[in-house]
């Protein structure tokens, strides 16, 4: 291994400056579009967290905050000609559990997670294609359209216009806006790929291109199908979960893994342990993941072979998951001490480990004998938070800690704030997953006992719901700290003295 750091002062620095300047130019070209995506992601993260807390509190205090919209409407009524006469009817019920819960899911899935994934994906595409971002205004326009879509959709859910199909609650007029924004990004990605600098296509690019290619098709197909006359009843259920699981498996998972496959080797400065395994992991994920949706409907009114095929595919998912786990672990082996110094690595490695855990747990949950206990319980909710939060969200946080300083040109303000963010989110999510898993098992075992009345089970679960809210508060603390820190960066109130994460090569010139 060459040690360029020590030889740098001696050798001619010219090629070095060239690489660093090149990278800086690529980063600079990403500034407006990627920061637009990140800023909106952080905004929706906070909105989604508020909905999450509301929904969580309503699980033990159902009437919490229910009257707020109605009293707001009554107050608005005094401006009668300016506001419509039916304001009270329109707003009444906007903060009931049945609307807050889907509002939480959609704001975190489409507002936070997808928006952050697009930002990270766009930055990675530019960096790995090694060309400056083409058509930045085009991409920024997509960010604006995307936000309008999420806003319209969330407002529609709160006003009672939800489709009632989980993961697809946004009504057709909102999904159409989202689809346009997404299609713009996909077209842009193809253009970037075509104009990439010749050479090897890194594994992260495979994941990003695949995700950007699969998801618009998936999203459009699912949304057209659920509104189609031939898709009703149990057929609607299978379309629902075919989409629901593929959104996780063919959109969030590849984007999360793309980031992990770039940031872990890049931060510790060591190539992926086995690049063969990473390619194998990608192609086996592409082959098996799209079959998994049916395992959400075990015991449901569907042909048995549909569900069995899903279970088989869910078990086959062990292959790409174990391959990825081995690869990330072996890359990190001997470098775990870097976790102490790098915020990006902390978040990303936490996420990568959770990916292994969440996926293997998912495989076991697809097996019929365990599913009879865990289905329709909090165990499933724990699993989904382990996947979308402990895995995906943590990787997105880590990626943003790496990317944002390079875009705004100053260093994060405070190591303490980053550490508060990390530990409150890490403990919060571990606590939440444990509570939901244990609570879910208790709930599931009680439900299997015909002698126990359902009311008893509900009463028994209340204490778990309280503790879940406590874990939610921990996550909220982390998010607020992160949003504050991120706002400082947007205002360029970060550190300007040269930190190690910043253009050090440029400074040496």
């Amino acid at each position: 291994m060459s040690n360029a750091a020590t030889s740098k002062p001696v050798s001619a620095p010219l090629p070095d400056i060239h690489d660093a300047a090149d990278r800086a130019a690529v980063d600079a070209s990403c500034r407006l579009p990627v920061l637009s995506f990140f800023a909106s992601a952080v905004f929706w993260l906070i909105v989604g967290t508020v909905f999450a807390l509301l929904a969580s509190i309503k699980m033990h205090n159902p009437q919490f905050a229910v009257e707020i919209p109605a009293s707001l409407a009554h107050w608005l009524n005094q401006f009668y000609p300016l506001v419509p006469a039916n304001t009270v009817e329109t707003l009444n019920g906007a903060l009931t559990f049945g609307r807050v819960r889907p509002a939480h899911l959609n704001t975190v899935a489409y507002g936070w997670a997808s928006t952050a994934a697009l930002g990270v994906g766009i930055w990675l595409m530019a960096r790995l294609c090694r060309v400056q971002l083409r058509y930045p205004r085009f991409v920024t326009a997509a960010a604006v359209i995307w936000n309008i879509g999420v806003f319209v959709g969330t407002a529609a859910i709160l006003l009672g216009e939800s489709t009632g199909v989980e993961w697809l609650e946004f009504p057709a007029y909102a999904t159409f806006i989202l689809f346009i924004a997404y299609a713009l990004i996909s077209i842009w990605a193809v253009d970037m790929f075509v104009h990439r600098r010749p050479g090897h296509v890194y594994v992260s690019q495979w994941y990003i291109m695949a995700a950007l290619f699969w998801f618009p098709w998936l999203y459009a197909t699912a949304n057209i199908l659920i509104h189609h006359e031939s898709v009703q009843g149990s057929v609607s259920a299978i379309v629902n979960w075919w989409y629901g699981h593929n959104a996780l498996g063919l959109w969030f998972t590849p984007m999360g893994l793309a980031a992990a496959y770039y940031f872990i080797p890049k931060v510790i400065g060591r190539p992926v342990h086995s690049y063969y395994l990473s390619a194998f992991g990608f192609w086996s994920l592409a082959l098996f993941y799209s079959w998994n949706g049916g395992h959400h409907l075990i015991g449901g009114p569907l042909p048995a072979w549909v569900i069995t095929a899903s279970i088989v595919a869910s078990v086959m998912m062990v292959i790409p998951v174990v391959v990825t786990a081995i690869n990330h672990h072996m890359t990190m082996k001997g470098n775990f001490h870097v976790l102490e110094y790098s915020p990006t690595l902390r978040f990303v490695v936490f996420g990568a480990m959770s990916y292994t855990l969440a996926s293997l747990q998912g495989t076991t949950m697809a097996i019929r004998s365990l599913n009879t206990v865990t289905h329709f319980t909090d165990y499933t909710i724990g699993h989904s938070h382990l996947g979308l939060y402990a895995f995906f969200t943590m990787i997105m946080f880590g990626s943003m800690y790496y990317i944002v300083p390079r875009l705004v040109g100053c260093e994060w303000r405070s190591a303490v704030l980053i550490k508060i963010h990390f530990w409150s989110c890490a403990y919060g999510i571990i606590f939440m997953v444990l509570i939901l898993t244990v609570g879910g098992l208790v709930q599931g075992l009680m439900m299997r006992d015909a002698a126990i009345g359902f009311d008893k089970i509900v009463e028994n679960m209340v204490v778990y719901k309280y503790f879940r809210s406590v874990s939610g508060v921990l996550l909220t603390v982390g998010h607020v700290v992160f949003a504050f820190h991120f706002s400082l960066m947007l205002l360029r109130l970060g550190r300007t003295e040269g930190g190690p994460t910043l253009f050090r090569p440029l400074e040496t010139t």
Partner: protein
Amino acid sequence: MALFYGLLIASMVLLGGSAVYALFWAAGEGQFTNMEEGSKIIFDKDEPEGEITDAFPGIDAKKEIARKQARRLSTAGAPKS
């Protein structure tokens, strides 16, 4: 209705076919040959292998690690002498 199902099935075939096409394209392009070299594409001359590229603000990770290693070596060496 026939058109609807036709479009649906055609789009599925296209999507599946495009994945197969991508696999063969990549193989033909030589993306799967000399992969160990390919995995190093994320490093540059000024950010070579062995360079830690991220740290908490105000910390030089490389110096910190070197300092810690030196301290460990000195404390490990102390009882022997």
